[in-house]
C-alpha cells in the first residue's frame, strides 16, 4: 500500500470521525439536559412548569443540587402547554422520573404515577386533610402536595371608594361594580383572557359540584346555567378587560392600572403589594343565585413519581427527601418568592409571613370558602367545560345546550374511569 493511499485513508478517516463526532454532538444536543446518569448515582429528571415569580427556577435547581445521593436535572418548561408536553413525554423513554401536576385519576388508571402512600403515611396527619383526600384513590395516595394556591379577586380599595362601590357579594353585584369602575382608561374587571379560571368557582359559587358522591355529573344545574348567562352579559358589557398582554396568573393588569379588580392567585400577592402598597384588597368569587355561596379555588401543585421510571426507588427517595423531610426548603418554596400556603400544617402554622395583613386574609378565605380539585375531574372533563365557557360566554351560545353537549363528553369520560 502506497504512502499516498495511506495518507488518503487517513484524511477520510479523519473526515468520517469529524462527521461522526458532529452527528454525535447533534444527537447529544437533541437529548441534552435529560438528567440521565452523568457519573455517580442513577441521575434523575424532574419537570416543572415555569413559575412567574422571580427566583423559583433557581430555587428548585438549588434544592436538587443539595441532594447528594444522585444527580437531579430540572427541566423548567416555559409556555402555556405544560400539560401536553408532560403527557407526551410520559409516553416516551425520555419521560421525567418525577414531575409536578394536579391529581387526576386517568394518570393513575394509565399506570403513569406511582403509589406514594408509604412515603406520606408517617406524616399524613401533618398535611391538610383536603390535600390528602384529593390525592387518594382506594386508600392509596398518589402525589405529595407541594403548595396550595388559593385564587380570588384582588381589587384596588381606592378605586372602589372613588366609584362608591362596595365589595360584591353576588355575581350581579360584580357586574354592577365593574360598570361603575370602568373609565376611559381603566376597565372594571379582568377575569383572564380565556376566562377559563372562572369555571370552577362559578360552579361552586352556584352551590353545585363537578361530580356528586357517586361520581355522576353534578355541575349541570339551573344556577350554573344562570351563572354562565351572567358571565356572558359581563363579557359583552364593555366593562371587562379583554385581550391583555398577559393572562390572569400575572398581576400586571392590576399593577399597571388597566383594571380595578383582577382574578388572580395568592402567589402574586407580594408583587401586587410591592406595586400597589396598601391599596390592595381581596374577596372570594361572589355567590351565584340565591342558593349559592362564595367560593375560593384552592389550586396548587403536587409532586408525582413516574411509575414507569427506571429509577423508581431512587426517585421516591429523592421526592421523600425534598417534599417530606426538607421542611426548610418546603417553607422557602412556599413563601420566599410568591405567597403559597404550605400544605404541611406545621409549616403553615409557623409561617410568620402568613400571620398578618393581606396574606392572613388570604389564608382565612382559603379556610372558609376553599374548594379542592376532585381527582375524578380529569383533562377530558376540564376541556369539555372549557369549551362550554368558550361557546356560551365568548361566542354567545346557549349555556344549557352547551352544558348538555358537555354532559355527553363528561359521561363518556366517567364511564371510562369508573365503568
Amino acid at each position, binding site marked *: 500500500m502506497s504512502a499516498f493511499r495511506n495518507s488518503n485513508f487517513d484524511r477520510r478517516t479523519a473526515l468520517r470521525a469529524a462527521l461522526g463526532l458532529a452527528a454525535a454532538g447533534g444527537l447529544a444536543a437533541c437529548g441534552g439536559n435529560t438528567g440521565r446518569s452523568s457519573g455517580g448515582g442513577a441521575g434523575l429528571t424532574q419537570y416543572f412548569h415555569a413559575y412567574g415569580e422571580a427566583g423559583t427556577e433557581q430555587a428548585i435547581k438549588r434544592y436538587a443540587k443539595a441532594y447528594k445521593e444522585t444527580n437531579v436535572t430540572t427541566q423548567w418548561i416555559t409556555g402555556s402547554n405544560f400539560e401536553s408536553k408532560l*403527557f*407526551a413525554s*410520559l*409516553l416516551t423513554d425520555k419521560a421525567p422520573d418525577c414531575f409536578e401536576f394536579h391529581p387526576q385519576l386517568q394518570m393513575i388508571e394509565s399506570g403513569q404515577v406511582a403509589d406514594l402512600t408509604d412515603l406520606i403515611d408517617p406524616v399524613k396527619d401533618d398535611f391538610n386533610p383536603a390535600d390528602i383526600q384529593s390525592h387518594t384513590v382506594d386508600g392509596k395516595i398518589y402525589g405529595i402536595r407541594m403548595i396550595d394556591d388559593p385564587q380570588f379577586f384582588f381589587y384596588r380599595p381606592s378605586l372602589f371608594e372613588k366609584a362608591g362601590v362596595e365589595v360584591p357579594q353576588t355575581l350581579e353585584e360584580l357586574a354592577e361594580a365593574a360598570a361603575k369602575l370602568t373609565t376611559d382608561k381603566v376597565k372594571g374587571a379582568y377575569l383572564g383572557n*380565556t376566562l377559563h379560571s372562572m369555571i370552577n368557582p362559578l360552579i361552586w359559587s352556584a352551590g353545585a359540584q363537578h361530580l356528586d358522591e357517586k361520581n355522576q355529573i353534578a355541575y349541570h344545574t339551573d344556577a350554573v346555567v344562570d351563572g354562565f348567562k351572567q358571565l356572558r352579559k359581563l363579557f359583552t358589557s364593555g366593562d371587562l378587560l379583554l*385581550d391583555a398582554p398577559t393572562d390572569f396568573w400575572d398581576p400586571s393588569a392590576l399593577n399597571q392600572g388597566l383594571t380595578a379588580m383582577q382574578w388572580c392567585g395568592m402567589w402574586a400577592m407580594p408583587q401586587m403589594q410591592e406595586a400597589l402598597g396598601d391599596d390592595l384588597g381581596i374577596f372570594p368569587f361572589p355567590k351565584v343565585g340565591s342558593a349559592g355561596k362564595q367560593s375560593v379555588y384552592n389550586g396548587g401543585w403536587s409532586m408525582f413519581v413516574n411509575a414507569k421510571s427506571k429509577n423508581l426507588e431512587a426517585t421516591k427517595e429523592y421526592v421523600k427527601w425534598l417534599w417530606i423531610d426538607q421542611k426548610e426548603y418546603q417553607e422557602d418554596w412556599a413563601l420566599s418568592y410568591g405567597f403559597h400556603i404550605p400544605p404541611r400544617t406545621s409549616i403553615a402554622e409557623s409561617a410568620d409571613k402568613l400571620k398578618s395583613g393581606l396574606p392572613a386574609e388570604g389564608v382565612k378565605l382559603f379556610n372558609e370558602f376553599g374548594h379542592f380539585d376532585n381527582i375524578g375531574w380529569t*383533562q377530558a372533563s*376540564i*376541556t369539555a367545560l372549557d369549551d362550554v365557557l368558550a361557546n356560551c360566554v*365568548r361566542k354567545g351560545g346557549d349555556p344549557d345546550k352547551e352544558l348538555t353537549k358537555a354532559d355527553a363528553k363528561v359521561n363518556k369520560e366517567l364511564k371510562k374511569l369508573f365503568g
Partner: protein
Amino acid sequence: MSTITKDGVSSPAPAKASPAKPRRGLRGSPTFNFWLFTGPFLIGLAIFVYLPILWSLYLSFFEARFTVTPSEFIGVDNYVTMLTDEDFMGSLVTFTIFAAFIVPLTWGTSLGLALMVNRLRFMRAFFRSVFFLPTAVSYVAASLVWKMSIFNGVRFGLANTFLGLFGIDNTAWLASPDPPWYWLVILTVRLWLQAGFYMILFIAALQNIPQEMYEAAAIDGAKPGWQTFWYITLPQLRATSTAVILLLLVAAYQAFDEFFNLLSKTTWGRPPLVELYHKALGESQDYGAGSAGALILTVLICLVTLLQGKFMGFGRGEESK
C-alpha cells in the same frame, strides 16, 4: 519501446493498459452509489414517516387514550367519532375560509411588491431585503409580537393606539368570534411572513420576460401601465403564478403556529392541524381519535391534490408529446 521488422522499420509498441482504468467493485457501481446517497434518506423516511403512518393506522382502530401501545380494539369507532365531530368538521370549514383569503391575498401582495421593487432604480437591493426579511422570522415569534404588542386589547396596543387617534374605543381583537377580528390578526401575520418569499419568485419571473416584448407592444400601440401588465406581464407570469398558488395552498394546509399561538383555548378558528393537535397531543391525549382524524385528513388532501392536478393540468404537457 519498439520492435524491429524485417524491413528494418520500427513499429509502435502495443499500448499498455491505461493506468486510469475505471475502478471496479462496489465503489464504481452506480447502484451502490445510488443506495449510498439515497439510502440514509430512505431509512429516515421509513422511520420517521412511513412507520408513524402505519402506527397511526393501527392506533386508529384502538382505544388509545394516554397510551400509544393500546390493547382495546374498537373497530371504526374512532372514525365515526371524528366524522360526526362538529369541531373536526368545523376545522375543515376554517381551513377553507383561511385558504380562500390568504391565497389570493398573498398572491396579489407578493406580485404587487415584485412589480414595485422591480421598477426601482435606486435602493432596489435594500427594499428586496426589507420585504424578504420577515421570511426569516419564526411563526411563533411573529404571532407573539402580533398578539402582545400590535393587536392586544389594551390602550397601549399599537392597533388600538392608532384607532384611538380617531376616537375609536379599544378593540379586543382575539377575545371573541363576533365580530371575527381574529381573522384580521391571523391573515396579516401570515401575509407579513410569507409575502416576501413569493415576491422573490415573482421578481425572478419578471426578469425572465424579454424586454423586446414590451418594445414590440409599444410599437403596436400598447399603453404602458395597466394594458401592458394585463396583456404581457400577467400571461408571462402564468407558470410562476400557478406554482405560487400551489405552494400557498400547501402552506395553508399546514397552518398551525399562528392559529395555535393567537387563539389559545378557543373552539373557533381551528384549522385541521390545530384541531388534531388538541385531539391527540393536547390535554385530551386521545391518540386513537387523533390518528383517525389524521388519516381522514390525509385521504382528503390526496383527493384535493388529485382534483387540483386535474383542473390545473399537471402532466398535460407530457401527454401531448
